[in-house]
């Protein structure tokens, strides 16, 4: 019963030093410790998803800030009574203020049109009504400054110009946005480091289990004179395959979730919050996921094999 019928094809002999042999052995190792392998993939996936979420949030914050036309601007509202000549004069005076980089005049008509464009088609009837009646918007100056340290002096100088009604500076908002970005970055980075470390350790454990399961085989291989390359490559490939699986799965999940969030935001926020389409992020995300996945997998394998390599 224990006798095997002679075979024409002998699998063992087919495999010497072929890439198929190494890949086959790597899959065999994964299958031997399937539970640990799944755990490694899931944890690494979580790490990649946090990375992906961080990247998506960061990119979208910047995208929305760009949409606001930047935060390093001061808005100067001009008295309604001012004539066009007076407005031109106010603009000239503002241009001469220290710290002012560029001064743009936004007329009442332009202000109304901008708002109409921003609100979209749904509110077009309200704007048509405003256009027909009296325009409630005021002329304003948009003043760009170079550095935050210019703001206080610039505001003071602008206040002294005749005809200036109100000054709105976005420097506070800019500071708050920067603070939020900073906190978000720190939280995400902390989670990334934690999950990355856990992933490496789980992969190390997984590879060590594979090494332990094949201990007898490895001892025999070493004693008959197998090279370190021949012995270690399947384990390195195992780490790389786990990393690759985690990368591809994480990319799929991220793409799906981002797509769902994108549709939800597009439908419910009416242009108040704009998200980049998934295609704008997918290229970088895919490459980053692959790189992080492979590096983590290989790092885990290398650390596990270090003991063997040092012998």
């Amino acid at each position: 019963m224990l006798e095997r019928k002679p075979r024409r094809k002998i699998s063992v002999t087919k495999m010497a030093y072929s890439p198929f042999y190494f890949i086959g052995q790597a899959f065999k190792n994964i299958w031997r410790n399937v539970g640990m392998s799944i755990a490694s993939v899931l944890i690494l996936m979580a790490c990649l998803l946090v990375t992906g979420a961080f990247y998506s949030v960061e990119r979208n914050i910047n995208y929305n800030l760009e949409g606001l036309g930047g935060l390093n601007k001061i808005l100067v509202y001009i008295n309604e009574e001012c004539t066009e000549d007076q407005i031109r004069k106010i603009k000239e005076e503002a241009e001469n203020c220290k710290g002012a980089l560029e001064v743009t005049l936004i007329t009442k008509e332009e202000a109304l049109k901008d708002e109409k464009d921003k609100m979209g088609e749904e509110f077009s009837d309200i704007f048509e009504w405003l256009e027909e009646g009296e325009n409630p918007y005021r002329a304003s100056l948009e003043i760009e400054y170079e550095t935050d340290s210019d703001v206080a002096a610039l505001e003071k100088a602008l206040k002294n110009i005749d005809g200036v009604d109100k000054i709105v500076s976005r420097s506070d908002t800019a500071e708050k946005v920067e603070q939020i970005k900073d906190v978000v970055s720190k939280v995400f980075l902390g989670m990334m480091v934690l999950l990355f470390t856990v992933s490496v350790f789980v992969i190390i454990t997984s590879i060590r289990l594979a090494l332990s399961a094949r201990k007898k085989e490895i001892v025999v291989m070493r004693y008959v004179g197998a090279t370190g390359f021949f012995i270690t490559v399947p384990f390195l490939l195992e780490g790389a395959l786990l990393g690759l699986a985690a990368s591809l799965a994480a990319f799929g999940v991220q793409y799906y979730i981002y797509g769902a969030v994108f549709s939800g935001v597009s439908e419910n926020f009416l242009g108040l919050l704009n998200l980049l389409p998934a295609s704008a992020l997918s290229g970088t995300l895919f490459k980053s996921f692959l790189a992080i996945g492979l590096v983590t997998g290989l790092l885990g394998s290398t650390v596990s094999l270090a003991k063997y390599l040092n012998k």
Partner: protein
Amino acid sequence: MIEFRNVTKLYGQSAPALENVNLKIESGEFVFIIGESGAGKTTLTKLLLREEKTSSGDIYVDGKRLRRLNFFTLPYYRRKIGFVFQDFRLFEKMTVYENVAFAMRAVGQSRRAIAKKVPLILRVVELEDKRDRFPSALSGGEQQRVALARALANNPKYIIADEPTGNIDPQRSLEIMEMLLKIREMNKTVIVVTHEKALVERFGQRVITISKGHVVSDTGKSS
């Protein structure tokens, strides 16, 4: 030729496993290394396989100093040695043929070379009719012969057998020894590490006795 020059091996603070050992084994010799348990036989084997490094002194094999072998050169040195484990270390899920082929595959031999050579080796150990059996279907003596065949697979110059008769009955032990003598005639140097003094005396070969880490007797070259 194998040469031990003032070899000492220490493990921590305990007494030396081997102390100031000097010996020479010429190519083509058949040597028994005997000694009681804990005498230093296993340490000597490990040093010869370069599983361990000497604490002091040097071992030369064919003029090469084993201390100087590194991660890259060590595998090529080990291909000169066919090692037979006391517990056989056969793979239960592989047939006799595959167990032998495994050793050749591990050193990157071609399909054709494996297919050509394994049957010849199995003929030497008289197992050609059992090539497709699994180890569990073989007797202890037969399993040891498979282990011997695997040690021969890469055509080593030296055969080191660690207690080759430790797990088999006396009749099979004699057969294994006869087989090792036959292998020596294939221009190999055979070193048999054992504690079975009575068995050794029947063969009239060179016997090196180790006790408490020292070489206490050496009968000199065999015929």
